[in-house]
Protein backbone atom coordinates (compact mmCIF):
# COMPACT_ATOMS: atom_id res chain seq x y z
CA UNK A 1 0.00 0.00 0.00
CA UNK A 2 1.05 3.56 -0.65
CA UNK A 3 1.77 5.59 2.45
CA UNK A 4 0.51 9.08 3.25
CA UNK A 5 4.08 10.31 3.04
CA UNK A 6 4.23 9.17 -0.55
CA UNK A 7 1.13 11.25 -1.44
CA UNK A 8 2.64 14.28 0.23
CA UNK A 9 5.97 13.87 -1.57
CA UNK A 10 4.41 13.48 -5.02
CA UNK A 11 1.38 15.74 -4.87
CA UNK A 12 2.55 18.64 -2.71
CA UNK A 13 5.17 19.98 -5.18
CA UNK A 14 2.72 19.64 -8.07
CA UNK A 15 -0.09 21.41 -6.23
CA UNK A 16 2.23 24.18 -5.10
CA UNK A 17 3.40 24.57 -8.72
CA UNK A 18 -0.23 25.08 -9.73
CA UNK A 19 -0.42 28.08 -7.37
CA UNK A 20 2.54 29.88 -8.98
CA UNK A 21 0.53 31.61 -11.72
CA UNK A 22 -2.03 32.85 -9.20
CA UNK A 23 0.70 34.51 -7.17
CA UNK A 24 2.60 35.76 -10.21
CA UNK A 25 2.93 39.56 -9.94
CA UNK A 26 3.41 39.82 -13.73
CA UNK A 27 -0.37 39.74 -14.11
CA UNK A 28 -0.92 42.76 -11.90
CA UNK A 29 -2.18 45.65 -14.00
CA UNK A 30 -0.67 49.03 -13.25
CA UNK A 31 -2.35 52.27 -14.18
CA UNK A 32 -1.98 52.93 -17.91
CA UNK A 33 -0.85 49.37 -18.59
CA UNK A 34 -3.30 46.86 -19.94
CA UNK A 35 -3.39 43.09 -20.20
CA UNK A 36 -1.58 42.19 -23.42
CA UNK A 37 -3.85 39.49 -24.83
CA UNK A 38 -1.48 38.64 -27.69
CA UNK A 39 1.38 37.77 -25.31
CA UNK A 40 -0.73 36.10 -22.64
CA UNK A 41 -2.80 33.92 -24.97
CA UNK A 42 0.22 32.63 -26.90
CA UNK A 43 2.10 32.10 -23.64
CA UNK A 44 -0.83 30.01 -22.37
CA UNK A 45 -0.88 28.07 -25.65
CA UNK A 46 2.80 27.10 -25.29
CA UNK A 47 2.25 26.08 -21.66
CA UNK A 48 -0.71 23.89 -22.66
CA UNK A 49 1.33 22.29 -25.45
CA UNK A 50 4.18 21.58 -23.03
CA UNK A 51 1.74 20.06 -20.52
CA UNK A 52 0.12 17.95 -23.26
CA UNK A 53 3.46 16.53 -24.39
CA UNK A 54 4.61 15.85 -20.81
CA UNK A 55 1.34 14.05 -19.99
CA UNK A 56 1.66 12.07 -23.24
CA UNK A 57 5.23 11.10 -22.41
CA UNK A 58 4.35 10.06 -18.86
CA UNK A 59 1.36 7.96 -19.96
CA UNK A 60 3.33 6.30 -22.76
CA UNK A 61 6.31 5.71 -20.48
CA UNK A 62 4.15 4.01 -17.86
CA UNK A 63 2.42 1.83 -20.47
CA UNK A 64 5.78 0.80 -21.95
CA UNK A 65 7.17 0.09 -18.50
CA UNK A 66 4.21 -2.10 -17.54
CA UNK A 67 4.32 -3.99 -20.86
CA UNK A 68 8.07 -4.69 -20.65
CA UNK A 69 7.77 -5.77 -17.03
CA UNK A 70 4.94 -8.13 -17.97
CA UNK A 71 7.00 -9.61 -20.82
CA UNK A 72 10.02 -10.22 -18.58
CA UNK A 73 7.88 -12.11 -16.07
CA UNK A 74 6.65 -14.49 -18.78
CA UNK A 75 10.06 -15.85 -19.90
CA UNK A 76 9.27 -19.40 -18.71
CA UNK A 77 6.60 -19.82 -21.32
CA UNK A 78 7.42 -22.68 -23.67
CA UNK A 79 8.00 -21.93 -27.29
CA UNK A 80 7.23 -24.71 -29.75
CA UNK A 81 9.45 -24.72 -32.81
Amino acid at each position, binding site marked *: *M*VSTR*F*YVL*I*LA*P*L*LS*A*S*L*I*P*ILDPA*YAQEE*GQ*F*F*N*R*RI*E*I*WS*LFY*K*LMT*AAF*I*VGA*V*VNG*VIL*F*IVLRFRERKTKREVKV
Partner: protein
Amino acid sequence: MGHTIYEWVYIGVVVGILIWVGADSWLVEKHLEEIPEEATTIRVVAQQWFWTFEHPDGTKEVGELHVKAGKAYRFEVVSKDVIHSFNVPYFVMTMDAVPGRVNKIWFAPAEPGEFLIQCREYCGLLHYQMRAKLIVEA
Protein backbone atom coordinates in the same frame (compact mmCIF):
# COMPACT_ATOMS: atom_id res chain seq x y z
CA MET B 1 -0.53 -7.63 -9.16
CA GLY B 2 0.09 -5.40 -6.11
CA HIS B 3 2.23 -2.73 -7.82
CA THR B 4 -0.02 0.27 -7.47
CA ILE B 5 2.84 2.65 -6.69
CA TYR B 6 3.61 3.25 -10.39
CA GLU B 7 -0.03 3.92 -11.18
CA TRP B 8 -0.27 6.40 -8.33
CA VAL B 9 2.88 8.21 -9.44
CA TYR B 10 1.51 8.54 -12.94
CA ILE B 11 -1.91 9.65 -11.73
CA GLY B 12 -0.26 12.19 -9.42
CA VAL B 13 1.96 13.67 -12.14
CA VAL B 14 -0.87 13.89 -14.68
CA VAL B 15 -3.38 15.36 -12.22
CA GLY B 16 -0.77 17.85 -10.96
CA ILE B 17 0.05 19.09 -14.47
CA LEU B 18 -3.64 19.39 -15.35
CA ILE B 19 -4.31 21.39 -12.18
CA TRP B 20 -1.40 23.68 -13.03
CA VAL B 21 -2.54 24.45 -16.59
CA GLY B 22 -6.17 24.63 -15.44
CA ALA B 23 -5.33 27.30 -12.86
CA ASP B 24 -3.31 29.25 -15.43
CA SER B 25 -6.08 29.05 -18.04
CA TRP B 26 -8.68 30.20 -15.52
CA LEU B 27 -6.53 33.21 -14.62
CA VAL B 28 -5.95 34.26 -18.24
CA GLU B 29 -9.65 33.83 -19.02
CA LYS B 30 -10.55 36.00 -16.01
CA HIS B 31 -8.30 38.82 -17.25
CA LEU B 32 -9.69 38.56 -20.78
CA GLU B 33 -13.25 38.99 -19.52
CA GLU B 34 -12.54 41.98 -17.29
CA ILE B 35 -13.08 45.04 -19.48
CA PRO B 36 -11.24 48.13 -18.13
CA GLU B 37 -13.60 50.92 -17.07
CA GLU B 38 -11.71 53.54 -19.09
CA ALA B 39 -12.08 51.58 -22.34
CA THR B 40 -13.56 53.49 -25.29
CA THR B 41 -16.59 51.77 -26.79
CA ILE B 42 -16.65 51.12 -30.53
CA ARG B 43 -19.71 49.55 -32.14
CA VAL B 44 -18.75 47.01 -34.79
CA VAL B 45 -21.55 46.41 -37.31
CA ALA B 46 -21.20 43.39 -39.57
CA GLN B 47 -23.26 42.93 -42.72
CA GLN B 48 -22.82 41.18 -46.04
CA TRP B 49 -20.01 41.83 -46.85
CA PHE B 50 -18.35 44.71 -45.06
CA TRP B 51 -17.61 46.14 -41.64
CA THR B 52 -18.80 49.47 -40.22
CA PHE B 53 -17.23 50.94 -37.09
CA GLU B 54 -19.12 53.52 -35.02
CA HIS B 55 -17.14 55.70 -32.59
CA PRO B 56 -18.63 57.22 -29.40
CA ASP B 57 -18.72 60.72 -30.99
CA GLY B 58 -20.97 59.42 -33.78
CA THR B 59 -18.37 59.19 -36.55
CA LYS B 60 -18.48 56.10 -38.70
CA GLU B 61 -15.75 54.30 -40.61
CA VAL B 62 -16.33 51.71 -43.30
CA GLY B 63 -13.60 49.16 -44.09
CA GLU B 64 -11.09 50.92 -41.82
CA LEU B 65 -10.75 51.41 -38.11
CA HIS B 66 -8.43 53.99 -36.56
CA VAL B 67 -7.42 53.56 -32.92
CA LYS B 68 -4.57 54.82 -30.72
CA ALA B 69 -1.78 52.71 -29.23
CA GLY B 70 -1.74 52.40 -25.45
CA LYS B 71 -5.50 52.90 -25.07
CA ALA B 72 -8.13 50.29 -24.27
CA TYR B 73 -11.09 49.70 -26.59
CA ARG B 74 -14.27 47.76 -26.01
CA PHE B 75 -15.98 46.42 -29.12
CA GLU B 76 -19.73 45.85 -29.19
CA VAL B 77 -20.13 43.42 -32.06
CA VAL B 78 -23.51 43.22 -33.81
CA SER B 79 -24.82 41.89 -37.10
CA LYS B 80 -27.48 43.24 -39.47
CA ASP B 81 -28.16 40.04 -41.39
CA VAL B 82 -26.49 36.67 -40.87
CA ILE B 83 -23.90 35.36 -38.42
CA HIS B 84 -20.42 36.83 -38.95
CA SER B 85 -17.32 36.73 -36.79
CA PHE B 86 -15.13 39.74 -35.99
CA ASN B 87 -11.53 38.54 -36.13
CA VAL B 88 -8.22 40.39 -35.73
CA PRO B 89 -5.62 37.60 -36.02
CA TYR B 90 -2.63 39.64 -34.81
CA PHE B 91 -4.32 40.49 -31.51
CA VAL B 92 -5.81 36.98 -31.10
CA MET B 93 -9.28 38.48 -31.03
CA THR B 94 -12.40 36.71 -32.31
CA MET B 95 -16.03 37.42 -31.49
CA ASP B 96 -19.17 36.23 -33.27
CA ALA B 97 -21.58 38.83 -34.64
CA VAL B 98 -25.04 37.34 -34.14
CA PRO B 99 -28.28 39.07 -35.25
CA GLY B 100 -30.21 40.26 -32.19
CA ARG B 101 -27.25 40.04 -29.82
CA VAL B 102 -24.53 42.44 -28.66
CA ASN B 103 -21.29 40.56 -27.99
CA LYS B 104 -18.42 42.32 -26.26
CA ILE B 105 -14.66 41.95 -26.52
CA TRP B 106 -11.80 44.31 -25.67
CA PHE B 107 -8.17 44.92 -26.48
CA ALA B 108 -5.44 47.48 -25.92
CA PRO B 109 -2.95 47.72 -28.78
CA ALA B 110 0.57 48.32 -27.52
CA GLU B 111 2.32 49.15 -30.78
CA PRO B 112 1.32 51.18 -33.88
CA GLY B 113 0.84 49.52 -37.25
CA GLU B 114 -1.67 48.19 -39.77
CA PHE B 115 -3.44 44.94 -39.06
CA LEU B 116 -6.00 42.74 -40.78
CA ILE B 117 -9.64 42.54 -39.72
CA GLN B 118 -11.59 39.70 -41.30
CA CYS B 119 -14.79 37.70 -41.06
CA ARG B 120 -14.13 34.30 -39.52
CA GLU B 121 -17.58 32.76 -40.04
CA TYR B 122 -18.73 31.75 -43.49
CA CYS B 123 -21.41 34.31 -44.32
CA GLY B 124 -22.17 33.95 -48.02
CA LEU B 125 -20.77 34.41 -51.49
CA LEU B 126 -18.27 37.21 -50.77
CA HIS B 127 -17.26 36.05 -47.30
CA TYR B 128 -13.63 35.82 -48.41
CA GLN B 129 -13.66 39.53 -49.30
CA MET B 130 -15.19 40.70 -46.02
CA ARG B 131 -12.05 42.35 -44.76
CA ALA B 132 -11.09 45.64 -43.17
CA LYS B 133 -7.97 47.40 -41.98
CA LEU B 134 -7.12 48.14 -38.36
CA ILE B 135 -4.84 51.17 -38.16
CA VAL B 136 -3.17 51.70 -34.80
CA GLU B 137 -1.73 55.19 -34.53
CA ALA B 138 1.07 56.18 -32.18
